């Protein structure tokens, strides 16, 4: 074996430690010490930290199989799909507000441009299928984890219960809060027909101002991330196994595929509206599309790839 050739220890560096913290826990548990030792030997500069952080993405998206058992791979898939799915759902909600909910002259536009009309129909159908799949696979698993976290007397696990309640409570609080705020800041008679270019997106024909809309969108994504993180933490702490996890993994595959289709349909509709009927869109500048399109593609890609890995694990025979 080759002799070690140590350099003066420089410490792994704060940046490298932060970058290492971006990796999945199982990856850190297996390789973390070795990476820290290598960084100490070779020096941990900004570039090394940036490359280390970059490789955390595939470590999540394509988790190494030898680091997880079959149920662990399904749970990791569920956590990743859950995060990507809620982001796609948030993007879908933004699309609805800025396209379908704009109203006004859309009836005439949709009759003239069947591509947009069909995109709306595909989007609606795919979103419904995806939500049903999440309910069909998610509710049994959630109930099983909830029973496990509630436990018998004295065995209650409050942290796990809080994680499990996050995907239920946080969206409800957000929806109630945003409804109240939208009612308070509503702009009377601010319809946008005929079209006039405005600098920032508006909610449903300008009923609330663009900055309020932006604030609600940001808060909505924050709520979505907290909800998905709660589910991921519950999966990690409670480590559920068995048919409920297999069912949820398969349902997550369907949900991811359907939400990916909805995202594709929304992209077609969004581009169609931008090109042919900007009066019916709540967005009027190309940068808004330039943000939306890659965000949908990235989230859909992560959801579908992670779901495929989970389904592959679900198909493998269970080890007794």
């Amino acid at each position, binding site marked *: 074996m080759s002799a070690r050739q140590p350099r003066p220890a420089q410490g792994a560096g704060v940046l490298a430690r932060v970058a290492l913290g971006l990796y999945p826990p199982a990856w850190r548990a297996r390789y973390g010490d070795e990476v820290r030792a290598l960084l100490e030997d070779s020096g941990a500069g900004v570039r*090394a930290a940036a490359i280390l952080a970059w490789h955390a993405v595939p470590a999540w998206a394509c988790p190494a199989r030898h680091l997880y058992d079959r149920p662990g791979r399904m749970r990791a898939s569920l956590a990743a799909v859950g995060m990507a799915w809620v982001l796609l759902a948030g993007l879908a909600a933004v699309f609805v507000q800025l396209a379908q909910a704009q109203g006004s002259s859309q009836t005439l536009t949709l009759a003239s441009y069947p591509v947009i009309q069909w995109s709306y129909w595909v989007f609606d159908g795919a979103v419904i299928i995806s939500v049903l799949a999440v309910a069909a696979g998610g509710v049994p698993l959630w109930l099983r984890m909830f029973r496990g976290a509630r436990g018998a007397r004295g065995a209650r696990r409050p942290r796990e219960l809080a994680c499990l309640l996050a995907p239920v409570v946080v969206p409800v609080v957000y929806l109630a809060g945003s409804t109240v705020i939208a009612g308070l800041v509503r702009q009377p008679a601010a319809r946008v027909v005929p079209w006039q270019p405005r600098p920032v997106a508006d909610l449903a024909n300008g009923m609330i101002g663009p900055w309020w809309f932006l604030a609600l969108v940001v808060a909505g994504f924050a709520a979505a991330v907290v909800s998905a993180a709660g589910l991921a933490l519950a999966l990690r702490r409670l480590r559920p196994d068995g048919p409920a996890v297999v069912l949820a993994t398969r349902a997550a595959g369907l949900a991811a595929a359907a939400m990916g289709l909805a995202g594709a349909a929304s992209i077609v509709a969004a581009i169609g509206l931008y090109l042919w009927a900007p009066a019916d869109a709540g967005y009027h500048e190309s940068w808004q599309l330039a943000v939306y399109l890659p965000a949908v593609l990235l989230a859909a890609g992560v959801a579908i790839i992670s779901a495929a890995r989970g389904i592959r694990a679900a198909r493998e025979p269970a080890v007794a």
Partner: protein
Amino acid sequence: MRDRLDRWADPPLLVLASLAEEPRHGYAITQDIADTMGVRLSAGTLYAVISRLESRGLIEPLESDDRRRPYRLTAAGATELAEQSERMHQVASVAQRRLRANYGWAGA
């Protein structure tokens, strides 16, 4: 031109080639690859590769009391390296033959 080489070199193959000589830990692998092949792998790249190779059963870790755990090539890794080396050798042979014929290249 070494920076350019970094973009074309295949890190998994470099790691397999390094371990074909003897078991090595992370720092020794990066040093060997830098010294013999002129490519400097960062910690992030190296451990992404090690994770993939270990997952595919091409390398395996050895016991170690130190944080610097050594790895060695498995039989499957040796087979994979042999196949890839043969393929690269064929490409190199064709390239060198054509360079000699068409560009007067005398060889290294």
